């Protein structure tokens, strides 16, 4: 465990996600080289960077899908990296949306949305169905509750995946390149749902290549390269006037 100065955690009091001196190795390969950053309550933070920069690994560390090699991560003040932490319980408060949707193919949309509510949150079947219907309506797919995932388009699948995460009534949402596996014409629907969420005040951490979304919705933009945060700040400023050379060269390629 690394030590962390008290002054820094003080001004981060109340942060939704607080990452402190995070290191992650895969074998001998260090993919995160000391990450320090936080997401405030209700903030939307977008993480961009070239592939292999460690941005997805960082996101996956936040809900412990990857175990950090060292460093600490706090979720609303609770340390999820604490070996004694009840990770399952903390995860239930963190919604996650994957690039590949990862809907459960052997269950209907409705059951995808209710199973964890019932088995993890202990909600009654009726209550779970009610919550699920509300969230399906929110993503515009109320009529799909008895469909199987195989019969959904990519954009519909991802919106169902968002509704599934929301049905757990999470305090925050993590998005891991949510539109990267979609056909271009389907990206808009998913981004629209995410914008709605942001405007409702949901705390969001979004790994993305959608610079337009970052500019429009993001409160903070983080540019990562080679396992470190190179630059962060207001998305409009960073995108318009990147200070760091590596940010400039990356943005010149993607914009």
């Amino acid at each position: 465990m690394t030590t962390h100065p008290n002054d820094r955690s003080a001004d981060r009091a109340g942060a939704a996600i607080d990452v402190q001196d995070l290191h992650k190795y895969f074998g001998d390969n260090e993919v995160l080289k000391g990450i320090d950053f936080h997401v405030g309550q209700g903030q939307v933070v977008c993480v961009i960077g070239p592939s292999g920069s460690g941005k997805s690994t960082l996101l996956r560390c936040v809900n412990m899908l990857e175990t950090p090699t060292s460093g600490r991560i706090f979720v609303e003040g609770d340390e999820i990296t604490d070996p004694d932490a009840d990770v399952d319980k903390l995860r239930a408060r963190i919604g996650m949306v994957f690039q590949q949707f990862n809907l459960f193919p052997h269950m209907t949309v409705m059951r995808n949305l209710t199973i964890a509510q019932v088995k993890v949150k202990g909600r009654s079947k009726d209550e779970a169905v009610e919550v699920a219907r509300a969230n399906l309506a929110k993503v515009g797919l109320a009529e799909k509750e008895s469909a199987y995932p195989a019969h959904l388009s990519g954009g519909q699948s991802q919106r169902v995946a968002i509704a599934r995460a929301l049905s757990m009534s999470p305090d925050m949402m993590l998005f891991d390149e949510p539109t990267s596996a979609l056909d271009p014409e389907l990206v808009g629907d998913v981004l629209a749902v995410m914008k709605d969420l942001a405007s409702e005040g949901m705390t969001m951490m979004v790994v993305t290549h959608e610079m337009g979304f970052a500019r429009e919705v993001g409160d903070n933009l983080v540019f990562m390269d080679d396992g470190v945060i190179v630059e962060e700040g207001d998305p409009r400023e960073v995108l318009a006037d990147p200070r760091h050379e590596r940010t400039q060269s990356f943005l010149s390629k993607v914009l």
Partner: protein
Amino acid sequence: MASPRQRAARWRYVQYAVLVAVLLAIAFIADWEQIQRAFWNWELVKEQFPDVITIALKNTIIYTACGFSFGLVLGLVLALMRLSSVGPYRWIATGIIELFRGLPALVVFIALSVGFNLAFPRYEIPFGNLGVVTLALGLVGGAYMAETIRAGIQAVPKGQMEAARSLGMSHSRAMISVVVPQAFRIILPPLTNELILLTKDSSLVYILGLSLSGYELTKFGREGMNSSSNLTPIIVIGLCYLLITVPLSIVVRRMESRAERAR
């Protein structure tokens, strides 16, 4: 010079000619009356009923169903042990799998029926012969199915487990609700294969020395053949085996195509 296509056509004619020649030879050489007397004697066929159904077919199905059910549970447990992060569980499971996969089913039957009494004279395998059959078929089938189930579990995309965990499910809850159901869908065809193999392996129960009420198909057929010096009873029980296995294949093919549609 013949073109490649002409050569291919000529070669195909040769193959047809050989087939026809062989069929004609069989038809002329064979003594059909003799064959019918030896293989399909109507009198003997009638004699087989109804016992071949009410005793033999019924017992084969009971033995197989019990052995398969136990084997499936055992296979699932062994597969999960093989995937465990606890070393000793993995080693024990690997040992059991290698042992019972490597031994002929007949040896397992003998070991259980004779060996168990010698090793634990004060205990008895419950449910008598049915218990022994269930254990023996289950051990052999379970050892095979364990590896199939393990492969099925590993074939489920990693994202499924991650999605389940990210919703707050524990590892075991995610296994039970998300991963294992999908694994079974993947391994339905090889599991059917195993069920068909066990149906045939159930004939080894003869080693236990059963009375008529415990006869399964093969034993029943052999007794019938010995008393009549005729192959008809064997043909009858052969058809009974097909009566089990062919519908089974059809049902599974249906299930597969239904699962395919939901995919």
